[in-house]
């Protein structure tokens, strides 16, 4: 049974309407989300939602994209399971949207760390979705004709092991982004780069944990970025590995790297940090608004440890897009745009709507 235009249109409208509810400051669902989120400061959450989900608010846009991606003869899933990890709202929206827009009834397993957002989104969607518990996942996955997982590599492998071979499948594991800039960073570019780094407190796969400086010194760029980050509201520390961040700063001091951060030695210490490093290869950070600015001679060599794990790149210089794609990048965008992944984004280099359908040859 293929997916009719009408069915697809209805589902896309329902999905986008649910997203609009979560962005609407007058909607009780939005208020509950902002008030109850344990992980994000209200300002951070509002800004992140607006930036990351703005492209998902048009049912018409969503319909045109899915229709173009999914051939009329494709057989969409009827029953899908979505297993969610992490605390990032846009990743949850995307994971649910892929099977939902295709017309499936969707069973959603919320992350144990933060069931809030998936529950609110399911409430906004209203029908065709149901929340399930962890104990229900194995049986649900065996019975499903599409499975989507968002989480750590370990979690993705775990659900993959439960899924019958041949079931249309999407698994989104651990990834990170980077930004690539020239040696001079003006105030506007610094502000845009700060948006890339700090949206959702750097918790997601589209958050850069390193900024590579091609042609120039890292300290100057780091200083400009630090000035832009200094003006931001505080972050919540829940769910962030503060020990890893403290170690990152300590190792930087030991190496002789310049560490920009809050001047105060009080509670603000550790709130954020920009570490100006020199040469070497990508190491990344544990997030929490900690970013390494690294001057490099050759981008591909510097990013070699990230092979296959690179999600996206933001940049204000010319870059070798094919080389970045071979490292895993599925988006190469201007500074400030990293977190604004649209529905058309080939998530982790795949066509997600296409991947969840089956195709039958009729000779």
């Amino acid at each position, binding site marked *: 049974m293929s997916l009719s235009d009408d069915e697809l249109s209805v589902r896309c409208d329902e999905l986008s309407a649910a997203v609009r509810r979560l962005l609407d400051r007058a909607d009780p669902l939005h208020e509950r989300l902002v008030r109850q989120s344990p992980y994000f400061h209200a300002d951070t959450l509002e800004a992140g939602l607006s930036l990351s989900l703005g492209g998902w608010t048009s049912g018409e846009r969503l319909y045109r994209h899915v229709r173009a991606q999914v051939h009329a003869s494709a057989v969409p899933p009827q029953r899908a399971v979505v297993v969610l990890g*992490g605390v990032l709202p846009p990743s949850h929206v995307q994971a649910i949207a892929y099977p939902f827009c295709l017309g499936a009834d969707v069973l959603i397993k919320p*992350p144990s760390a*933060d069931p809030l957002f998936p529950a609110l989104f399911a409430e906004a969607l209203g029908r065709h979705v149901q929340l399930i518990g962890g104990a229900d996942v194995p049986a649900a996955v065996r019975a499903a004709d599409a499975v989507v997982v968002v989480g750590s590599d370990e979690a993705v492998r775990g659900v993959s092991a439960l899924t019958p071979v041949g079931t249309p499948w999407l698994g989104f594991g*651990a990834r990170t982004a980077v930004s690539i800039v020239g040696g001079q960073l003006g105030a506007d570019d610094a502000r845009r780069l700060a948006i890339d780094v700090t949206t959702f407190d750097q918790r*997601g*796969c589209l958050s850069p944990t390193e900024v590579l400086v091609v042609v120039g010194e890292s300290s100057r760029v780091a200083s400009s970025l630090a000035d832009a980050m200094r003006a931001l509201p505080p972050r919540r520390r829940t769910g962030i590995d*503060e020990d890893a961040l403290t170690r990152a700063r300590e190792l930087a001091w030991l190496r*002789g790297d310049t560490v920009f951060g809050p001047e105060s030695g009080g509670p603000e210490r550790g709130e954020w940090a920009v570490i100006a490093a020199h040469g070497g290869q990508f190491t990344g950070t544990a997030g929490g608004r900690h970013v390494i600015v690294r001057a490099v001679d050759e981008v591909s060599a510097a990013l070699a440890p990230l092979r296959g794990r690179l999600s996206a790149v933001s940049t204000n210089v010319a870059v070798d897009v094919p080389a970045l794609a071979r490292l895993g990048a599925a988006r190469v965008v201007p500074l400030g745009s990293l977190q604004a992944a649209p529905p058309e984004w080939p998530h982790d280099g795949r066509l997600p709507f296409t991947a969840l359908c089956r195709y039958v040859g009729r000779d």
Partner: protein
Amino acid sequence: MSLDASILALIEGQARFEDVAADVFAHQYSASAAYRRLCDAQQRAPAAELDWRLIPAVPIEAFRGQSLTCFPPERCVATFLSSGTTSAERGRHDFDTLALYRAGAMRRFGAALAPTGRRRIVSLIPDASARPDSSLSQMVSWALETFGTDESGVDESGLSAATGAPALVLGTAFGLATWLEQNPTLQLPAGSAIMETGGFKGQRQELTRDDLFQLYERAGVPSACVVGEYGMAELSSQWYDGVVGQAGPPETRVYWPAPWARTRVVDPQTRRDVAPGETGLLLHVDPVNRGSVQAVLTQDLGRRITPSADVAPPDGPPRDGFVYVGRARLAALKGCGLVDEP
């Protein structure tokens, strides 16, 4: 008195830990540019009456790819490399003298494992001639030389321990488990003992402490004669969880620092000491580490044990110990599944 002389005096119980730790801090702050940068960033400098708990600690991973020495490279006489259990790059610890290391290691080894003097020692662990970059192998060599009888030596098969005089068998948990599983009928002579160190380091399926002790019991070594040793290439001193022949049941074991060292158990998020009985990261202060950094924050988790009428270190002043819990799960590359699993 020179700094090394005062550290030796500390090892011999003739100096105060607080005084020597303060002197070592002053020396390391002055002699190591890297360490001084860390201290300055944390606004900590040597000062009279500085509480030893405020001495800045270096993350253990700093020993990888970073020089932390307090002496010129040309004075290096020995280098130990860590086993690299979770990283391809091994930690490196340089020494300009092994005299302090040996003094502390043998004093502690003797107190825990050879309190009555020389005895037969059979080591499953290679000695320093086979593994010159292993601090554990160096300790084996010293132990054989200092406390071993003529019937002592390295025997990686361990089979010689089953015949002749009762032996103190030195081994890693991995090596001991493999040895005894491959020789299920092996019986050690009455009076034999075991020093167990390290873990399984991902080389095979892990056994619990109870499982290991059952293996030892089956081989004829009761739990009272099994002593656990905790140490690492990045430190000079060792921690033991009992005295051979008197060690308590496995579930009561506490690793106590040597009288000249200290251990803090700190909250990973705040770096403040956890409450007694709570679990946190192990931070060791070892003044014998004079040539590098004395305060090291490890990636190990332990439960803080404060001395009481029921549980106390076997010797020396009151000081905290710990029950080893395991390795901390460190933040790695993250994606959208940053917090928790589904």
